[in-house]
């Protein structure tokens, strides 16, 4: 259960973001991608998450190219970008239910309520997400992580717009996932607070 990148390069317009990147992440590991703004962190994450086509090089999941695997690889993947991926006109519960069914999980209403409660959204489940605050919207998006049983989490700056309590909560969730043998790839400007010492750092120099 490893995710490897070989000679990975990304070109944005006519600028080369990074060239011949090699790394590999095993189950139960967290890969932290660092670099200043605009050095291609998000582009790398999008390429890993198959949102963006690979310019040059290969990405292997269990030694099979992710472009060949495509839907099977996406089955194992959860992505959270800067956008929350939730509809503002629907309620938090409806959003979560749709995300789960979309990713092939049949999940009971009770489980949805528990996930929302765990993210500190008790009492807000049936309100249209439009009325919630930015932090609460972010928690709704993060609540899906509790329900998803995928192995790989790719999170693009997940701690943005979260208050101290939510940050601690998310760190706990990520740590639990990594300990259970999951793979987490994320970018952040804060401390990840993972104490089990299985963090791999990758610096994109530009």
């Amino acid at each position, binding site marked *: 259960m490893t995710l490897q990148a070989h000679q990975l390069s990304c070109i944005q317009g006519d600028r080369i973001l990074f060239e011949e990147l090699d790394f590999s992440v095993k189950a139960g590991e967290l890969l932290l991608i660092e670099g200043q703004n605009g050095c291609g962190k998000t582009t790398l994450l999008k390429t890993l998450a198959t949102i963006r086509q690979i310019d040059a090089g290969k990405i292997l999941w269990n030694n099979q190219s992710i472009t060949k695997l495509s839907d099977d690889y996406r089955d194992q993947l*959860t992505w959270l970008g800067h*956008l929350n991926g*939730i509809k503002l006109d629907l309620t938090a519960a409806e959003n979560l239910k749709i995300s789960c069914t*979309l990713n*092939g999980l049949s999940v009971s209403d009770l489980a949805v309520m528990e996930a929302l409660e765990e993210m500190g959204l008790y009492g807000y489940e049936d309100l249209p997400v439009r009325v919630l605050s930015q932090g609460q919207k972010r928690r709704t998006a993060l609540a899906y992580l509790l329900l998803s049983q995928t192995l790989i989490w790719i999170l693009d700056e997940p701690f943005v717009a979260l208050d101290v309590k939510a940050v601690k909560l998310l760190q706990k969730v990520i740590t639990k996932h990594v300990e259970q043998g999951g793979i987490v790839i994320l970018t952040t400007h804060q401390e990840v607070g993972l104490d089990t010492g299985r963090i791999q750092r990758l610096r994109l120099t530009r």
Partner: protein
Amino acid sequence: MFKTYILILQRDLTLALRHKTEVLTTIFFFIIVISLFPLGVGIDKELLQKIAPGVAWIAALLASMLALERLFSSDYEDGTLEQMLLSPQPLFVIVLAKVSAHWLLTGLPLVLISPLVGLQYHLDFDRVIMMMLALLIGTPILSLLGAIGAALTLGLRGGGVLISLLLLPLYIPVLIYGAGVVVDSALFNNNTETYLSLLMGFLILSLVLSPWATAAALRIASE
């Protein structure tokens, strides 16, 4: 697979029905456009009967194009489109669901109010039936091809005008054969069935072509 189709279809319909006004704008646009022509062209009975099919089809074409811009743009802006791209379900099922929602909200209502065209343009009963039948087969084609245009111009400035520039050439066969059905039935020669079968053939071609092209365009747009 089918569960996802129903899920996305339900989601889009609930979303649309929470903003009833958007649904009605398309229908009122259709009614206004068909009511404008007699004011411009004159109210002579034979003339109106002759131009009725063409007018109805052009109005339907423009009305369905009106609602296309919002087909993917709201999902694009709030990130749900990214989640759809990453769902293990094949993307063309999701695209078909969204196109069906668009058709139910814009295409079907046009079919249901097309008898209004019959009234305004003095069409007799079986012309109106032919018109409704032609629109019933034709409007899904408009939604399917329209989805390609909507996906290609996602997030671009001036998207509305650009969509019509891309799609009008593709809509021409629907217009020719769609209007041809009604004109032909008016002349009492018997090959309205061939027109309808041509329209059906075109519908099947769009059903095959559009999901692939729209999915490819969506992946390109959200890179």
